């Protein structure tokens, strides 16, 4: 269902100017972030709420503090 009700939602953003693509977020949250062949960082900007803890840990461990997390309780 496209508009399935969820308990809570998280939105991920990455500051493109801050991010230097060290990949620490990939180690912490491999279900949310990944580095692709050309060195770019890809990420799921609306991961499932079950991935909230790993996404938070990625944001905490980011060397450039480039990851933003918005959380909305429903």
């Amino acid at each position: 269902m496209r508009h399935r009700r969820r308990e809570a939602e998280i939105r991920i953003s990455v500051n493109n100017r801050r991010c230097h693509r060290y990949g620490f977020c990939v180690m912490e949250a491999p279900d949310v972030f990944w580095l692709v062949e050309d060195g770019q960082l890809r990420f799921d900007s609306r991961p499932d709420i079950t991935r909230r803890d790993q996404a938070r840990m990625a944001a905490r461990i980011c060397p450039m503090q480039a990851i933003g997390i918005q959380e909305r309780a429903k």
Partner: protein
Amino acid sequence: MTDLDPMLSRASADAAAASPERIVIVGAGLAGLRAAERLRELNFTGELVIIGAERHQPYHRPALSKQLLLGELRPSDLLFESYVELDAQWRLNTPVYQVDTSRRMLHLPGGEEMRYDGLVIATGVEPRHLAGSPRHDSRVVQLRTLDDAAQLRRQLRHGDGPVVVIGGGFTACEVASTVRQMGRAATIASRSPVLMGRALGQKLGRSLAELHRANGVDVHLGVKVLNWFRESWGMALHLSDGHLVLADAVVLAVGSVPATAWLRGSGLALEDGVLCGPTCHAVGANDVVACGDVARWPNLRFDSTPRRVEHWTNAVEMGRHAAESLLAGQRSARPYTPLPRFWTEQHKTRLQGSGLPALGDDTVRLAGAAEDGGGGLVGYVKDGRLVGVVGREAPRAMVRWTAELEEQLRRTATRAPGRERITTTQRTAERSSANLRGPAADRTSGPLRTPDGERSSGALRPVGAERSGPYLRAVGAERSRPNLRAVGAERSSPNLRSVDPGPASEQEMPPVDRTRLAAWEFSRDGARAMN
């Protein structure tokens, strides 16, 4: 926290049962902040007090030597976020004079006494003093705090003359790089014969000096400052190698010492920091944990020798673990066994490491950096066991090798040291290629499938270009080059960042290439030699 559930529910239950009323965190840096956050995550509902000697809320120190000095970020950009409501009392600009662990009492300025039920020590380190340096001269600065960085920025605005950096560690090297980026002359004068030798080892440390020299830094190694000449027009430093170097400003970055003066007489074991058991509990008290730069503990993942780990990531991870241990209590707490990680960026070259490279008595060249386009990877081996990995411009390979290192350490931890050899057997190779298949290859199934279901790089587009899925984003658009041939031609440049080396093949990932690493060059030739 799903992976920690059994321990955490116990910890929470204990917390509720024992109901410690007040936990005081001394040290308002990164480790203290993350400890506070973890305490609330674990449903500690009592009073939480955070005492900091600086007047600032916790901030991102690694940026001081780079983005803040360059003016790319302002002090307000450096403040950390907390991902849970802390509901803490902040006592900033407040030194703690003494602690009485038998009465569980802290002594604060003005005769104030503060009782605690649990204590988290997170006071970090302070810059080491260089004997003979004129610290009363405003042109001679250290770089540990935001206020230090502001003073250095003021000093640098006075002129455009040369800057001398004394020291050879992370801070010294990064400041020298930043000074060059500002278009000014930079000198490194280090007592040590190699740069960043403790983090990188001898061979890489030697190559790092070449990177600095290639970028115009005047590097003097194995030297002391014999004389300081301070004149109105500037300063001159007489080095023990006979050189006289001129300076508008001098940055002292000669290492740091644990900030433990306030713990004298506390009954805690103070030997190069706060000595802790494997769980982060301080030796000599029951309700005290320590974390971050100040803590010295045995990381049982490697061995039983207590060490301090001054890496930034350790402040995050140890702060969190110390909070868990404090709530769990000494008997039920788990050992803290992180895989240390670090990074640095100098002259637009990213270096990053995992494990404890300093333990290695040998280095090996590791495969897999080719996928990152001209990077290099070195493994550090002790008794035939991989104990650390350092990569230059190789983030993707570092993700894989960090996982591999973790796996190898896990396997060897259960065997007698030295029994398990790094092998290139078929079995290991197969397991490695299975385990080390990168996220890019694995993550295309499920909800993250790209529209056409392919995982070719053509389907992965940067921000600003066409998005490949409703919620998929990419970062690094400005670094991708449309023309792969042009990129390939540039690949041997030491400053090259993320480039597309073409599709990575899994056969390029044997576990360890036993070829002895003669030297790890940062030069143009080096990039080719590594691949």
